[in-house]
């Protein structure tokens, strides 16, 4: 899937324009290869055009599917999820630096990475429909399922890299987390472990400027998050996370260090969550359209496409063909997921994976449940379409009618 680049990547170049209005990062330098207009900032093209075009395809595929999932959620066909809109370069550029032997440890927003690693769209949809079947792990894949408790997964990457070291395997681990997650103690603990044991972990922080409603500047001091790496004893790099080539270049080097016993790297991708935090969130409560507009002009897909077009490696016809191919794929996958859900999903499956072998008391509960479920439909769909403003955070709240329309009194019903 991922080939190593033909040439050694060129040295980091400092930023041209201010890229991150939410984080000033005064005086810090950021790795950047391509500007918003798609111009190479310095030197030779670091990667063959075909490779860049291939990664661009992955970015478009992820964005299109992400947008489609948002629609499905709005129609009530899947439940809550966290869109990756705007972060495709940070995700594809970093995961493309990994081989299938390297471990992929996501948080909850890495749709583009998961698709790149080969997760079938139907599985992503099944999970979104509230069916555990969607996160069933093929035993040979080195991918972990999404992790919602913020930051917790960082320690798993430490363990995975440690295991690779103990078993003498040439493989590293890449762990994804956000700017908000860097405030959690476990993330510090993980980086310290990796530093002191010289473990091959790439800590891939997508600094997308927001943790729900909390802006980056309220999360931590106004120094780059990547500077923390110095104290743990490994390199930290700030990279323009909307610049595919820059991310790919930095991560290729970091993953190579991870595989070859050189230890960990902290990569801070400066990017932007262009969409909602999750489908239950309403960004209008805490941020303005102006800021969103400013970041729209730095969009990672536009930038990569312009770069490729300028080099004669992409055009409108190819774009259209790609979109059609993705749409056809999505149609098949959505149908497959919806067929599965309609195929009388077994509610008793929830008893099957609590232990490797089911203890008798659980078997008894399963029998009891079977009796209780008989003749009833106890499996739920995603239900009603979403309405803005309700703030259910991650789900759907039952709403009492407005006061004047409410029943006469008491109303505990």
């Amino acid at each position: 899937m991922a080939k190593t680049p033909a040439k050694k990547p060129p040295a980091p170049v400092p930023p041209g324009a201010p890229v991150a209005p939410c984080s000033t990062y005064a005086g810090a330098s950021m790795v950047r290869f391509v500007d918003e207009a798609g111009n190479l900032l310095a030197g030779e093209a670091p990667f063959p055009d075909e490779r860049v075009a291939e990664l661009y395809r992955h970015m478009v595929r992820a964005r299109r599917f992400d947008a489609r999932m948002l629609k499905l959620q709005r129609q009530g066909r899947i439940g809550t999820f966290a869109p990756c809109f705007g972060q495709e370069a940070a995700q594809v550029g970093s995961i493309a630096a990994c081989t299938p032997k390297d471990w992929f440890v996501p948080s909850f927003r890495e749709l583009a990475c998961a698709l790149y690693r080969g997760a079938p769209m139907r599985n992503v949809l099944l999970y979104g429909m509230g069916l555990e079947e969607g996160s069933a792990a093929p035993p040979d894949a080195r991918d972990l399922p999404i992790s919602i408790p913020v930051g917790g997964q960082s320690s798993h990457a430490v363990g995975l890299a440690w295991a690779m070291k103990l078993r003498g395997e040439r493989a590293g681990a890449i762990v994804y987390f956000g700017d908000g997650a860097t405030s959690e103690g476990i993330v510090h603990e993980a980086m310290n472990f990796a530093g002191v044991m010289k473990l091959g972990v790439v800590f891939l922080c997508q600094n997308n400027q927001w943790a729900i409603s909390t802006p980056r500047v309220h999360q931590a001091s106004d120094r780059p998050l990547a500077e923390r790496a110095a104290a743990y004893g490994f390199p930290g790099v700030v990279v323009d996370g909307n610049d595919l080539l820059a991310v790919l270049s930095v991560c290729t080097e970091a993953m190579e260090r991870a595989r070859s016993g050189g230890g960990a790297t902290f990569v801070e991708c400066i990017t932007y969550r262009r969409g909602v935090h999750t489908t239950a969130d309403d960004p209008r409560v805490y941020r303005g359209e102006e800021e969103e507009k400013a970041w729209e002009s730095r969009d990672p897909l536009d930038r990569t496409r312009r770069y490729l077009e300028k080099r004669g490696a992409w055009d409108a016809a190819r774009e259209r063909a790609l979109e059609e191919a993705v749409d056809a794929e999505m149609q098949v996958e959505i149908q497959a997921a919806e067929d599965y859900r309609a195929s009388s999903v077994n509610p008793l499956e929830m008893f099957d994976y609590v232990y490797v072998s089911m203890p008798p008391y659980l078997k008894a509960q399963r029998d009891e449940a079977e009796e209780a479920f008989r003749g009833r439909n106890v499996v739920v769909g995603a239900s009603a379409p979403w309405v803005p403003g309700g703030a259910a955070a991650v789900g759907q709240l039952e709403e009492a009618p407005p006061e004047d329309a409410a029943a006469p009194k008491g109303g505990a019903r």
Partner: protein
Amino acid sequence: MSGNSVTMVEALNRALAEEMERDPRVMILGEDVGVDGGVFRVTKGLQDRFGKDRVVDSPLAEACIVGASVGLAIGGMRPVCEMQFSGFMNFAYGQIQPHMSRFLGRTRGGRRMPVVVRAPSGGGIRALEHHCESEEMSYVSVPGLVVLMPSGPRTAYGLLKAAIRSEEPVIFFEPKSIYRAFREEIPVDGDPYPIGKAEVLVRGNDVTVVTWGAMVRKCREAAERVAASTGAGVEVIDLLTLKPMDPEAVMESVKRTGRCVVVHEAPRTGGFAGEIFARINEREDVFYGLRAPLARVAAYDVPYPLFARENAYLPDTDRIEAQILRTLNA
């Protein structure tokens, strides 16, 4: 937020506002509690009203939110901290159990701990993984903690006021499925609802149903059905305080009815029903009067499933009704 018939979210918001008005030491901290007003909007408008020093958007760090609250309390403030979901309160357990719950004892009464830890809990809203669990037993088992769970706007308002005025650390679980589900009248500048006092919601002499939180509504529905179909008197008790629990309300009732069904959303093994049964067992006057085996309706002993299967997992009115009937006929 006009009028006095409000949802639980509005009732909690009012209780917070009135207590902040009343006592300048009361402050709020947590993730997204300020500008956003909390992901469920419980603290909506409070930062505008009381300022950024008293309603604080903290970094994303549950352990330090609680740990800092311990320090704030010792330093003379009365922090009310919000855990965005009770599932993430586990990150703060290392502060709640070893530190917050033990300070009073360790200092032989010298350091009180007026801290409230609020957390939305329970399931039933088709939410994501880890956003649905009922974890009251992790806290009920810790000596020194007060554990409360209201069952609607009125009790939420009164209990939160009591929690904020308490000199003891309180874990305050808010059943999220009923945040906006129905309205009740609440007073303006009303009184706290006493900690440690259960409420008998429906009177009856044939069977006692003990429950709390979001299950209260379902138990009342089931009780009505049973009463309608059999004419039996089903007594429904809402515990409200899990620790220190009101034993008399339950003992008096079960002594009278001789039958008891406990209903909770948390998994069966290690659930609070077991504690209630043990207490009944320890009271000779109640135990020897039992006319049916004690029974419980709880979630199954499996991890909270993703939402497609959550209706199968959670106790529902049908299951509760069936158990009440079995107990009546035993």
